[in-house]
């Protein structure tokens, strides 16, 4: 499943954040969205995931249009995300954070919660799945620690695990490598490639151009709210106007 948008436009009291953006991220690939500070990348992510309503434009997951859907419905359509500043539930354990993300849990119905019919079985299955994901991102040792006690890099890995636990088709990651030490960053890049192997589409906003060059199949460059270039990294990253966008 891929994600595409047409004619997305958004401005904040006069300042244009997005001016008529129409992009499409290829199915099953890793797409990097790059561009200098304040170019509208996070704004685009917030619009696609329903947290921000644009002035104009429509966007789709696969063939289904998700324009204007609230965030929880967008997530239910198979499009989950992470945030620039790490967001998680620091008061509960790492395992609980991942178990929270599983969609359509019967135990989330009020009567089931009270009478506990068929909840225990599902919880056990949820726990197994969550533990598998923690193992996948390398946090199995921290399973029962409070999420608040994790290091920043570990918290980034946890949010990735939560994203996966929501069983998405497409992952939208907002600066997955920002503020992370080099070894964790390499680890995250390896995980993103494995996620792609599992057939999921990955789209991430990032500044670390070296990382983009290493794993991205497709690159979209946004500057001053418009798409200035898009295509495979080899082609796009060497074009002079890319450096210009960053540096001018």
């Amino acid at each position, binding site marked *: 499943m891929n994600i595409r948008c047409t004619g997305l436009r958004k401005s904040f009291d006069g300042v244009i954040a997005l001016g008529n953006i129409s992009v499409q991220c290829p199915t099953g690939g890793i797409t990097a969205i790059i561009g200098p500070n304040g170019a509208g990348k996070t704004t685009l992510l917030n619009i696609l995931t329903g947290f921000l309503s644009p002035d104009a434009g429509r966007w789709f997951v696969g063939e289904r249009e998700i324009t204007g859907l609230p965030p*929880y419905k967008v*997530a239910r359509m198979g499009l989950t*995300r992470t945030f620039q500043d790490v*967001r998680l539930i620091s*008061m509960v354990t790492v395992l609980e954070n991942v178990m929270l993300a599983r969609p359509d849990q*019967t135990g*989330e119905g009020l009567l089931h*919660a009270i009478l506990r019919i068929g909840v225990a079985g599902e919880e056990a299955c949820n726990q197994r799945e969550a533990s598998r994901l923690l193992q996948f991102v390398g946090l199995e040792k921290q399973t029962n620690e409070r999420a608040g006690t994790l290091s920043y890099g570990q918290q980034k890995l946890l949010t990735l695990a939560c994203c996966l636990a*929501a069983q998405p088709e497409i992952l939208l990651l907002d600066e997955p490598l920002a503020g992370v030490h080099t070894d964790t960053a390499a680890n995250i890049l390896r995980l993103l490639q494995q996620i792609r192997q599992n057939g999921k589409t990955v789209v991430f906003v990032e500044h670390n151009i070296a990382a983009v060059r290493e794993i991205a199949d497709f690159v979209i460059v946004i500057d001053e709210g418009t798409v200035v270039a898009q295509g495979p990294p080899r082609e796009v990253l060497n074009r002079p106007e890319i450096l210009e966008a960053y540096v001018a």
Partner: protein
Amino acid sequence: MDYLLHILILAAIYSILAVSLDLLAGHAGLLAVCQAAFWGLGAYASAVLTVDYGVYFPLGILAGMCLGVLASFLVSLPSLRLTDDYFVIATFGFQIIAFAIFNNWASLTRGPLGIPGIPPPTIFGWRVDSQWKFLLLAVIGAVAAYIVVNRISSSPFGRVLHAIREDEIFAASLGKNTLRFKVTAFAVSAALAAMAGSLYAHYITYIDPTNFTLTESILIISMVIVGGAGSRWGPLTGVLVLVVMPESLRFIGLPSAIAANVRQIMYGVLLVVMMLFRPQGLAGQYRFGR
């Protein structure tokens, strides 16, 4: 002796109120200061139904709880769009509107005169006409409320509430319809408070609007906060500290006129001290707004 029973019955009823409010304030992080409104609603529903229409007690309680659920939608849907301080003020507003209804809808609630002569409850032939029997009924009610709230808070439903409490945007990004969870929690909290209202009405046998004022709501929220919001024993600790202990003031011969003020000063001071030194409360871990 029966004064001790009176305190225990009051403690059981207040426990229902504190535990039910804790589902909202402690587990969902919604600082609602209108629990006395739902408490009053249950009391008046039971009183009016049994005194004016001779309705059978269990039906009275059920009717009160359903009314509580309905009223909770009227309260939660408009106010849940607001954040923090504005939400608190909106719930203050509903508390004041509810009190005005109890106080002025004379044809239904007989206004300031209140409703006297509420018969003791009979359940399937069991006439609860002594304090001992009433204590048993009140404790059953309290235990039921405690089980319901703890079952909810320790279930996946509760897990989502705890997510909403700390970061609703994160919960929404994982596909949780946060509004549904908050409205449902409101409804359960209101229904349990209404049940406490029915029990209270049949125990006190005479209710008037002054039992269900803003001050009562502030007392109930203080119990939850001082005791420790969002924890198993927090609300009950709050009841112990803010109901049982002050009631025993009467033993040391404090004239009742002064006792009411002293009791409020006590929980006012406790609330301030708690916020300064132990914002998570005596037995809790959750700190508001963290």
